[in-house]
């Protein structure tokens, strides 16, 4: 390996690391607010990339149909669950958010997709299709389990992942896609040729991190989310609607996932099931950082990205093994560093 290759690998690693950082930070966010270890975050990324690809091809993306399916399922289940307790206002929101919005988006996509309106439209439409999925998934799967233990929520999360991957195959098919970069072209930097898209990925990642910081530190809603994370009961007692903080967290997760997907689509080929591995690598980063610090998670994600790209060079077949095995030493260190036992949540 010479210096150029090393630099090239580093560039690759940093770009992937930036994507993992977005995943990792989202996982920390969702875990903090809802205690859900949100394994399916990767699915949002894969679906966003697949949606952009479909729009580029001028076809209706599977996500448009999926959103409608999710909306109908959520509304139907909520009617069954709540029955007579439903208020007019609630029904109106459900009609608007769960049914009219997905149906409207679907019609818009059917009308607009063949016109191939270009990058900005594709990105905006992808965000519009994916963001509502976050709160819908939360209401469908996790809200009824809000009182359950972390373990039960984790198992549910894995169940959601399982269902979503299956749905992904149905709605997107098995073919892989690669999208056109948002930023085309390259520029030379010493011995390297750097893609503008790579710079774009880094800039967006940093902007998202800053945005999250501003949201949690400066806005009332962000503070409410943090309060819920610290103590659900306490937050409820001071009038924070705890269920809606969960929905907001999931909307944020879907939004960040969609952004990551739009970015990553042109860097690597994405299949309906690519999200899992991307998501898990973000996870490795979040675990290294102990599932609670945003900056540490971002740093750990860079480390994972670099490790992956160098191990891809030295031992490509064992790339995944190496990446997933680094959590072992991290867990050992955490285990040694951990003090006396903490009491975990009571039985589920």
């Amino acid at each position: 390996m010479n210096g150029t290759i090393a630099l090239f690998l580093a560039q690759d690693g940093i770009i992937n690391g930036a994507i993992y950082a977005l995943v990792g930070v989202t996982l920390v966010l969702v875990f903090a607010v809802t205690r859900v270890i949100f394994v399916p975050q990767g699915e949002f990324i894969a679906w966003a990339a697949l949606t952009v690809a479909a729009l580029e091809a001028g076809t209706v993306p599977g996500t448009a149909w999926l959103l409608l399916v999710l909306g109908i399922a959520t509304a139907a289940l909520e009617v069954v669950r709540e029955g007579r307790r439903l208020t007019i206002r609630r029904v109106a929101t459900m009609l608007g958010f769960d049914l009219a919005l997905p149906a409207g988006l679907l019609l818009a996509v059917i009308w607009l997709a063949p016109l191939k309106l270009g990058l900005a439209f594709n990105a905006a439409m992808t965000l519009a299709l994916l963001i509502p999925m976050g709160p819908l998934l939360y209401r469908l799967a996790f809200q009824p389990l809000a009182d359950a233990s972390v373990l039960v929520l984790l198992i549910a999360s894995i169940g959601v992942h399982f269902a979503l991957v299956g749905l992904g195959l149905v709605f997107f098919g098995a073919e892989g896609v690669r999208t056109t970069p948002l930023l085309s072209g390259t520029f030379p930097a010493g011995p390297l040729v750097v893609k503008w898209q790579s710079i774009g990925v880094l800039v967006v990642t940093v902007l998202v991190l800053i945005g999250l910081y501003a949201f949690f530190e400066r806005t009332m809603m962000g503070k409410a989310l943090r309060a819920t994370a610290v103590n659900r009961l306490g937050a409820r007692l001071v009038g924070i609607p705890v269920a809606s903080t969960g929905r907001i967290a999931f909307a944020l997760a879907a939004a960040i996932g969609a952004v990551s997907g739009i970015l990553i689509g042109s860097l690597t080929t994405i299949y309906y099931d690519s999200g899992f591995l991307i998501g898990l690598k973000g996870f490795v980063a979040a675990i290294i950082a102990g599932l609670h610090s945003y900056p540490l998670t971002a740093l750990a994600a860079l480390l994972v990205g670099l490790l992956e790209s160098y191990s891809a060079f030295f031992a490509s077949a064992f790339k995944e093994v190496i990446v997933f095995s680094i959590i072992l030493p991290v867990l050992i260190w955490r285990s040694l560093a951990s003090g006396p036992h903490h009491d975990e949540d009571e039985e589920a």
Partner: protein
Amino acid sequence: MSARLKSWLPRVVAILAIAIFPLIPGVPEFWVTLAGYIGLSSLVAIGLVLLTGVGGMTSFGQAAFVGFGAYTSAVLTTKFGLSPWATLPFALLSTGLMALLIGVVTAKLSGHYLPLGTIAWGISFFYMFGNIEALGRYDGISGLPAFSIGGTSLISARAVFYPIWISVLIAVVLSENLLDSRMGRAVRALRGGSVAAESFGVDTARAKLVIFVYAALLAGLAGWLYAHVQRSVSPSPFGINAGIEYLLMAVLGGSGYVVGGVLGATIVTVLKDQLQNILPKLIGTGGNFESIVFGILMVAVLQLARQGLWPFILALLPRPADKTINASAPALSHRQAPDRGAPLLSVDKARKEFGGLVAVNDVSFTVKGGEIVGLIGPNGAGKSTLFNLLTGVLGATSGEVRYRGERIDGMPARDIAKQGIARTFQHVKLVASMSVLENVAIGAHLRTRPGVVSSMLRLDRGEEARMLAEAARQLQRVGLGEHLHKPAGSLALGQQRIAEIARALCLDPALLLLDEPAAGLRFNEKQQLAGLLSRLRADGMTILLVEHDMDFVMRLTDHIVVLVFGTKIAEGTPAAIATNPQVLEAYLGGVE
């Protein structure tokens, strides 16, 4: 028919039904094959039931343990020519060691690190075995020998059915024996949080490790069988998706019940087969529809029936007979009570700081043998922090705590329990689903020895009887003799507090530490509690209690220590405390 016989009847019927199933003429070969796969999955699911439903942990990597067992046997039979029977110990040893490694790393960490570690392990396994040349990469190893008995090869589905289901039967029996034993109760106590279990001497990290390794061994056993039933191995059946399916089996069947694992394995295996056959025909295209159905099923079960489906079947079966208590079982060894009046516990300038806050400020006092000492103070006085220093939940910043002259500050809760100090909790920590008797028997954990293997093989019955007899005796002593077999969660709060005292007494302590024992009790219950504590004192017990109820403390104790803002402001007899001006000022506000 006796209750015992009646409760055994369904099991005998079930075993007979399974035994004759392949012999019924007209049963298609395919059904028998499917039944074989159900058996293999059951082994894995039983392990997960113990891990998830009983121990409160989980694993997504069980499929990888199955793969480890399968590959071990595949390599040993094809490369080294060993007979399939001879490879069993190796298959178990290799999976056991692997589980031990992962378990040691994660067992001490809080709940969700173990499952996350197992996801990483499951994925690593898949890519590792798929890339090793000697293991045939993703194609795997084929041409494995079948099991054979006396020269006859067990190749047909009907022939291998019996080794598989005999293994399942053995796994069920061993697992149920384990749960119904000293170590089993320790594992079940994990669900109530680790602090309570540790306070009675349970090494919770070890208990978690034991159950994790045991679950992995069952998976390894399934893998060993699978290798020689399928007669080929490749990485794909051992990937993370298979791991998730095994977990679904445990969750669906009933994650707290051993037999629930078999039920879950049956439903998932049959459903998967049906879905793979029917759905593509129905919808017209290929795809892994079963994963959609399984995913939704998993979430639905958790939302609608978190205990899984087995409880619904259990409700139809005759109630299992109550445990028999052999009152004539020899008593457990008994500790010498300390001399009355001799210093037993001495706290010397104990101090605890949280950052800049001094929660306990150089507090010193002594508890003498045979006394009831009360620790009182307004809210925020540092009583609970001090209590936590004494019980090993928190470490002191400085100062010493000595018990019978030996330093115990900084000792973990488990070692403090070994010294003969037992405690109760301000917020009751009983495992709601276990019977009162079993909860209390955990208190005697340190007074008996039986380990995992002897429990599984039922070599522990002598000691088990002594343990249960002791638990029953202590429950009678505190007046709960009529509630032995009820689930602890069904008792009233006051009774649960008393049951905690019985559990503490099972430790055979010389010193009893009670954290707000009268909180939330009604007047009558308080009277009974005071009576009980007085009787214990008369029997030579030394008691230190933290309490809010002044009336209760004044009438019961021999000596009172008053804390205000972390500092001891007074100590003395109840009469002296009642007239102490500083105490009155702290409680009632000063006279301006």
